[in-house]
């Protein structure tokens, strides 16, 4: 849109938000002094546009302070709280090495030394990913971390776990070695017995490779992001014996999290 072609879709009360040419707006030093110029032309608090509604919903559910806090309650100072992020870190290594494997292809990763090394990084990160995730799961189970409107955090965790198992399973099936052959021929009978062998055919290498490299990592990734955003929006669950102290970030007055608040 050029400065001299008026946009007919623009409603008068939204003009400020859609002006995109510097010629239309006084950007000189008088901005903020002239009461007719909105100091923040991108935001109209009363707008009903979907962008505004989405922004308001996001800001009330997950303001930046809660998304990226720099203080946490005292009880978070324990190694058990590190395992969620360790799981996430292992997942990132899996994604990056998996991308390298996908672009370079099996002729590279099954024969060359750097290929075998990248393949091993991918494999061992998966082992770490599951070890970290299980310790994380045990930790959250024993602290009953689904308390206080956190059921969805637990449920997204469960789904992430199941989707990860599917991703790992299809990964073992695309090794194209005796191990993958053994696994698929053991699995096919079980999957046929429950009646899904026709749709999920473990002997179909193409299907397994596409599920492993395209669909399932995406599912795990999206669920994991949702899971972490839920944790950030709810705040870390307080220990079981301090239910009265529910607040997400250590308050500015320096009160400790173990203090009982009314």
């Amino acid at each position: 849109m050029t400065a001299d072609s008026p946009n007919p879709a623009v409603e008068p009360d939204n003009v400020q938000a859609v002006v995109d040419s510097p010629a239309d707006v006084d950007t000189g030093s008088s901005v903020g002094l002239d009461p007719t110029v909105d100091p923040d032309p991108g935001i109209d608090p009363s707008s009903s546009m979907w962008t505004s509604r989405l922004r308001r919903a996001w800001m009330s559910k997950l303001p930046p302070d809660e998304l990226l806090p720099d203080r946490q309650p005292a009880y978070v100072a324990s190694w058990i709280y590190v395992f969620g992020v360790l799981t996430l870190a292992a997942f990132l290594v899996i994604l990056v090495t998996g991308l390298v494997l996908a672009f370079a292809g099996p002729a590279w990763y099954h024969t060359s030394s750097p290929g075998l090394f990248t393949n091993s990084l991918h494999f061992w990160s998966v082992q770490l990913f599951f070890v970290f995730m299980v310790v994380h799961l045990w930790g959250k189970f024993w602290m009953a971390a689904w308390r206080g409107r956190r059921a969805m955090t637990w449920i997204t965790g469960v789904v992430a776990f199941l989707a990860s198992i599917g991703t790992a399973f299809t990964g073992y099936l695309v090794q194209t070695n005796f191990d993958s052959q053994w696994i698929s021929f053991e699995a096919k009978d079980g999957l046929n017995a429950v009646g899904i062998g026709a749709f999920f055919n473990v002997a179909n290498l193409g299907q397994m490779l596409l599920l492993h490299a395209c669909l399932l990592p995406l599912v795990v990734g999206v669920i994991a992001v949702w899971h972490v955003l839920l944790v950030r929006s709810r705040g870390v669950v307080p220990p079981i014996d301090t239910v009265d102290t529910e607040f997400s970030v250590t308050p500015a007055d320096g009160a400790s999290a173990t203090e009982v608040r009314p």
Partner: protein
Amino acid sequence: MDPIYLAGVNDPATYINWGWLSISVPNLIVILIMIVLFALAILLPFPKGRDRS
């Protein structure tokens, strides 16, 4: 030259049988590692962050 493998993943694993329980050594090792990690995560003191008093 034959490569040296840290873990032989091309041969069947050794299994431990204890009554009805049958478990491969690799699986047993992983489960033990997870239990040890869990115990350490609970017991080890967490380093103090920067002091912000």
